[in-house]
């Protein structure tokens, strides 16, 4: 009896073992980095989304991973994995904990990097991840209700200058690029709005639709449906040039005399720290390739992204410089 027990226990162990290998089996396969030649992934890549399902970063990562799979750019799957929370802090800390793991990358968005500079995080984003590439600008616009009193940026700014503290500025969370945009308007255009914080830009758009705020700061993707239907009017863009399509009516701030007011949110890929050069090159190349796929192109177009390519080194430098600029303004604001 005892023998039988031991035997079955052993068999069970084997069962468990094979199970755990079956789980790993999909990820197994030969690693060719050891055989010389360029680095290629030896198992599925964990594509971390530092936000919840359905948000901008989530769609970004899923669109990219689908484009990669549809065009067979990679032998392995890029598995989008949500690690949301703490204004992206959870996702970034996860990246830090995976230091040196070459099969973990992150959907990078400038908003989270702003938070790492100004929201009291223990580390800045450069100390947690390394930028691989920037693939698109996700420009922000100001939108008003078409049926509301403010049809263009001049009348809106004038109202905010004349009656400070009465107009409501719907936005997502504080200590983010949206607040930077708000502070710039205050500093350079002397327009004094009331900052109303919502959980997400989507909620801010809902509030604008209900007439609870006078203006909302939104990415084109977040208001395209409303703009197409004519319920929202884009009155200005924070980009350096006018956007395309339905947004072309909205002037840049330089056009109306405030050249300092510029904000370009960007999206791309970040990697864990301590990744080998070969792996970094691989991801950079994948970024370049995916940008050219018809699926991803279509995604960029429908969401009114502006495609751009900044590779290794360059993207990191650009991101750091932008963040420093934003952090300086926040410092100035909080000093008062």
């Amino acid at each position, binding site marked *: 009896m005892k023998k039988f027990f031991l035997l079955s226990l052993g068999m069970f162990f084997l069962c468990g073992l094979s199970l755990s290998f079956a789980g790993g089996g999909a990820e197994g396969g030969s690693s060719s980095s050891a055989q010389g030649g360029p680095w290629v992934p030896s198992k599925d890549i964990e594509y971390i989304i530092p936000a919840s399902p359905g948000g901008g970063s989530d769609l970004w990562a*899923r669109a990219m991973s689908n484009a990669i799979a549809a065009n067979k750019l990679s032998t392995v799957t890029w598995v989008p994995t949500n690690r949301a929370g703490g204004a992206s802090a959870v996702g970034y800390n996860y990246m830090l904990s995976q230091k040196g793991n070459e099969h973990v990358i992150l959907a990078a968005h400038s908003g989270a990097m702003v938070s790492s500079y100004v929201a009291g995080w223990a580390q800045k984003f450069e100390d947690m991840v390394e930028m691989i590439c920037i693939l698109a600008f996700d420009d922000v616009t100001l939108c008003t209700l078409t049926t509301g009193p403010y049809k263009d940026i001049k009348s809106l700014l004038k109202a905010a200058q004349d009656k400070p503290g009465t107009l409501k500025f719907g936005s997502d969370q504080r200590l983010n690029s949206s607040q930077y945009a708000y502070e710039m308007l205050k500093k350079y255009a002397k327009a004094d709005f009331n900052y109303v914080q919502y959980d997400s830009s989507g909620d801010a758009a809902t509030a604008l639709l209900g007439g609870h705020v006078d203006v909302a700061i939104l990415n084109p993707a977040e208001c395209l449906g409303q703009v197409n239907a004519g319920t929202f009017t884009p009155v200005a863009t924070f980009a350096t040039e006018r956007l395309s399509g339905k947004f072309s009516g909205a002037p840049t701030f330089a056009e109306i005399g405030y050249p300092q007011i510029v904000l370009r949110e960007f999206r791309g890929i970040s990697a864990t720290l301590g990744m080998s050069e070969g792996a970094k090159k691989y991801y950079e190349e994948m970024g370049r390739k995916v940008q050219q796929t018809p699926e991803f192109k279509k995604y960029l177009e429908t969401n009114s992204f502006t495609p751009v390519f900044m590779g290794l080194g360059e993207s990191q430098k650009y991101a750091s410089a932008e963040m420093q600029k934003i952090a300086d303004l926040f410092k100035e604001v909080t000093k008062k």
Partner: protein
Amino acid sequence: MFENLSLLFFGFINVFTFDSIAACLFGTVAGVFIGAMPGIGALTGVSVLLPLTFAMNPTAAIIMLAALYYSTMYGGSISAVLLNIPGDTPAICTALDGYKLTEKGLPGKALTTCFMSSFIGGTIGMLILTMSGPFLAQVGLKFGSPELALLILLAMTSIGWLLGDDVICGLFATALGLLFATIGTDQAAGYLRFHFGLPNLMAGISFVPLVIGIFGFSQVIELVTQRGSGERPKIKIKLRDMYLSWAEIKRLLPVQLRSGFMGTFVGVMPGAGGTSASFISYIFERRVNKLGDSFGTGVIEGCAAPESANNAAAAGAFAPLLTFGIPGSSTTALLLGGLMMWGLQPGPLLFTEKPEFVWPLIASFYLGNIICLLVCFAAIPLVLKAVSVSNAVLAPVIFAICVVAAYTTNNSMFDVFFMMGTGVFSYFLKISKVPSAPLLLAFVLSPMLEKYVRQSFDMTRGDPSIFVRGGICWAFILLIFGFCIAPVVVKRVKALRTKT
């Protein structure tokens, strides 16, 4: 309105294609199963299935995901009733009375009540959606932050009714709920608070591991300690018990109708979902129902109210999604993302420009609802077997499910430890007779209150007059005062009567 009916008819004609019906069938069956598994709910289900749908045609794809969404509301009640572990967060209130019914030996009756209420609630929601979806969505938009803050306050004043016999213990539980809710990112300014340097706490405490701990793991402990002491009598289950008598159906119908209407409306409002809908209607029903005082001891009305409300809310959430392209809950936000991926632009134009997409979807709701009901009734004899499994076997099996489910929420081992911690903690609360309902209610509602109050003050730079800005606000304020004063008055009147 008649135009809508003819459009719905057109939708029905289109929904009877092989693709659509297969999608609907798969979605409902998967949804009932996913709903019944503790820890994974509609959100996980939809996000897992979303990538699979990119190859499908958009109508079939959304029919499948929508079916999955509302059928999890059915499934959630199964494990809530049988095992006292809500399959998904909207089923929390169902567990309060449903499991008590199981302990009384009436699990079949509880399940029948749940499914019937789900069906009626869902149908009410769908009818309202068909008839007046765009109008309802307009009304929902009228609810800005101050109105929502007052609505939540109204619900919070009702915590008193949930406190149980011992008010101090109930308040203590409320305080614990608040304590958990304050951990993480603050709702006012976005700063981190009380995270003690732990990245896992920065996002705040996840609701699902908390619920699994409070219900699931503490239930495991109870099963183990009860073993041998003979507290839980072996239940003999007869299928005959699952039928409701005519009198019971008559008793339930007003409850289901009330909760259905209320649930639809809560579902339409921005930011609220099935969980808030079921909480609010459970509290409301407890107040207005004749049997209100015996809620929580195992009455079928206690199952009917939340189940009817959460299904109605699932249907109601589609009103703002289809009318304006704005999500009412995190699951519908995900569906919205799906729409974009399928090449559809959600927005106010969807109804007029894509009737061939919208109306078959709405028609599929009716179809899916009927399939859900049939699937669930067919499953009753099968799932009832779970109750007849001995506690000895049940305990480790439930534990294993709890661990995997807690992990799945955020793919993190931290949640597993947290789940076990809260499980032990809430077991001790249970034997100290501290109720868990106020804790969960405070945990769900207080962050929303904090957020809406902050937004209201943001709008006016600290001027509180915004809370009396319109008719809706005044109505809520009067209700709050009424609800606070009513019990005192009732007590006085009763005291006077006994004197004379």
